[in-house]
């Protein structure tokens, strides 16, 4: 009984809960994005569907479900079908190791405390970095198989961008890893509970991580692969209906993933803000708040900045972010030793 409980029932329930919550938060995120940016631009945003337009995401989802599924005549059909799946699956798989809170018994519901992550791999961070890199195949193949020039250009930009920003992103995380002395997501948070959050000693790493995370998820000001004004819609120009929705979902899921990583690695995960521990706010709320803050930065940037050009983007990645991240690693390593 105990065996099935621990090894089958609990993980299954956890998986269901996490995926439901992630997909729901994507819906909330699309609504929040439109509202937040609307307020920054002195307008109201969606107001028609439901009170204050709250049902807008549902209306959008329904619309996408009922859209005609168009496949270009000359498209490579198999790859064309495969690409959205390749984009969405890695984005969701990364949630496997995100710890949303400390060990808990869910208010006495369970006999033994269980961790708030689906699985606490001891190489969690490495796993996330590896899996999230697979996601670019979706974009690359989607752009390639459409057999159209705009998606092709978008896919090329995207591949180049993600490959080059993966490097400084990883390098930026190495600093905190050195300090925590572990690759486990849970271990990193626990390391921060003893000292201060890693955002303070690793401030440069945090900035680099933020910039690279924006680039990784193809968001403004690094949203070149889908630059509407240049490439119409970039790699998913030819996609419609649910296939398009999958790309859309993947983009937002990726945003949530990178925010979760930032929260765990730099912002102390589920730990309360120092000095506010007496409030007895559940760990998961702290986690959600920190993630929300990071996601808000995404929207804020989008409302503020113009878009970089392809070559400029590459130049910053290779000539600025990577050297600074490397220096950061050396300095951290020296101090840790």
């Amino acid at each position, binding site marked *: 009984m105990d065996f099935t409980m621990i090894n089958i029932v609990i993980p299954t329930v956890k998986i269901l809960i996490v995926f439901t919550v992630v997909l729901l938060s994507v819906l909330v995120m699309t609504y929040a994005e439109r509202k937040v940016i609307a307020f920054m631009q002195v307008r109201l945003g969606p107001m028609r569907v439901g009170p204050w337009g709250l049902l807008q995401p549902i209306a959008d989802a329904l619309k996408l479900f009922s859209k005609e599924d168009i496949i270009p005549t000359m498209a490579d059909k198999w790859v064309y079908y495969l690409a959205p799946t390749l984009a969405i699956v890695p984005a969701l798989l990364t949630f496997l190791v995100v710890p949303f809170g400390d060990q808990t018994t869910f208010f006495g519901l369970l006999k033994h405390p269980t961790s708030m992550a689906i699985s606490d791999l001891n190489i969690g961070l490495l796993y996330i970095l590896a899996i999230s890199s697979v996601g670019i195949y979706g974009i690359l193949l989607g752009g390639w198989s459409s057999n159209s*020039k705009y998606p092709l*250009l978008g896919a090329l930009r995207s591949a180049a961008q993600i490959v080059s920003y993966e490097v400084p992103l990883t390098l930026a995380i190495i600093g905190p890893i050195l300090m925590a002395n572990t690759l486990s997501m849970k271990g990193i948070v626990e390391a921060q509970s003893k000292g201060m959050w890693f955002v303070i000693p690793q401030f440069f790493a945090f900035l680099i991580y933020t910039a690279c995370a924006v680039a990784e998820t193809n968001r*403004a000001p690094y949203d070149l692969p889908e630059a509407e004004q*240049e490439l119409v819609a970039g790699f998913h120009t030819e996609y419609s209906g649910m296939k398009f929705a999958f790309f859309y979902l993947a983009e937002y899921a990726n945003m949530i993933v990178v925010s979760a990583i930032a929260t765990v690695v730099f912002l102390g995960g589920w730990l309360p803000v120092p000095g506010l521990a007496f409030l007895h706010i559940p760990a998961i709320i702290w986690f959600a708040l920190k993630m929300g803050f990071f996601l808000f930065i995404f929207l804020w940037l989008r409302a*503020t900045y113009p*878009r*970089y*050009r392809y070559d400029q983007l590459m130049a910053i990645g290779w000539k600025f972010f990577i050297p600074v991240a490397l220096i950061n690693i050396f300095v951290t390593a020296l101090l840790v030793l």
Partner: protein
Amino acid sequence: MFKSEIIELNMGPQHPSTHGVLRLKLKLDGETIVGLEPEIGYLHRGVEKLAESFTYLQALNLTDRLDYVASISNNLGYIETLEKLGGIEVPRKAKYFRTLMTELGRLSSHLLWLATHALDIGAMTVFLYAFREREFILDMFEMVTGGRLLTTAFRYGGLKDDIPKELEQKIRDFIKIFPGRLADYEALLTKNRIWMKRTKQVGVISAEDAINLGLSGPVLRGSGVRFDVRKAEPYEAYGELDWEMAVEDGCDTYARYLVRLEEMRQSLRIVEQALDGMPEGEFRTKAPKVLKLPKGEVYHCIEAPKGELGYYLISDGKGTGPYRLKVRGPSFVNLQGLKPMAVGHMVADVVAIIGTLDVVLGEVDR
């Protein structure tokens, strides 16, 4: 084993940032442009030919539809051309009011340029900010002419109606809020690193090339050429008002951005002075109901927001409409600058360069 090919990319006529129905045939090496050919004519309505079968007053409606974001300037240029051939003197009040309206038109046109130019480069917020102020100006146009976009303002010999009473307060409100709003746009763009990177050294054209291509307006002044029809051959009340010509030496997209922003500031100065100094008296001289002009040919140009807007009018002395009307549209001529500016740059820059040329296809195709 590997070979590289030049790909031909068709940009437009339906494309988010070709501002209407401009079609570009791009030849790309990777993302670098090696060849570019603008294809125009998708919006051709035969305005010049149509004018021949219209009366002089009816043809005024056609001029609205040239540069439809600055129709006031088109109206003014056309009406002045008629007046030049007819040899009629316009009352001072009408002159001041025409100046005021044209400058408001320039502001609205430049605001639209700023909005779309910034949006093309990815700065979405400026777009909505600029549209908010443009709305304010369009409300004023509606007060005066009843139309917001197609104004059909002014008549031969003066204005159609007297100035509405409520207009003055509206303009004063605008003068009060606009400098602050302009500062907002500048805060978002002028010193923004990404904006500077995207616009500096992009779309460079030397003063000599600009003159040889016949470019005019802010595009010419961004290359350091001191030429503005309002200063060179002052018309209406421009000679009597105190304002500066905006010139920058940068020759690039950033310089043209600065020129247009400075022009907005100067336009506001002109509007304020014209409003303060608005003379009393008649708004229109006596002119015949059915207009007939003497036999002759005339060319007249004004400084439209996009550049030098000229009308060449031939009257045979018998009919009640133009025998021939030729429009020298600044957008059409400025579009010639696209190829020399864009070749060697990247796809993203083409979008910025179309934006900085500020072409309106209604005027390019006519």
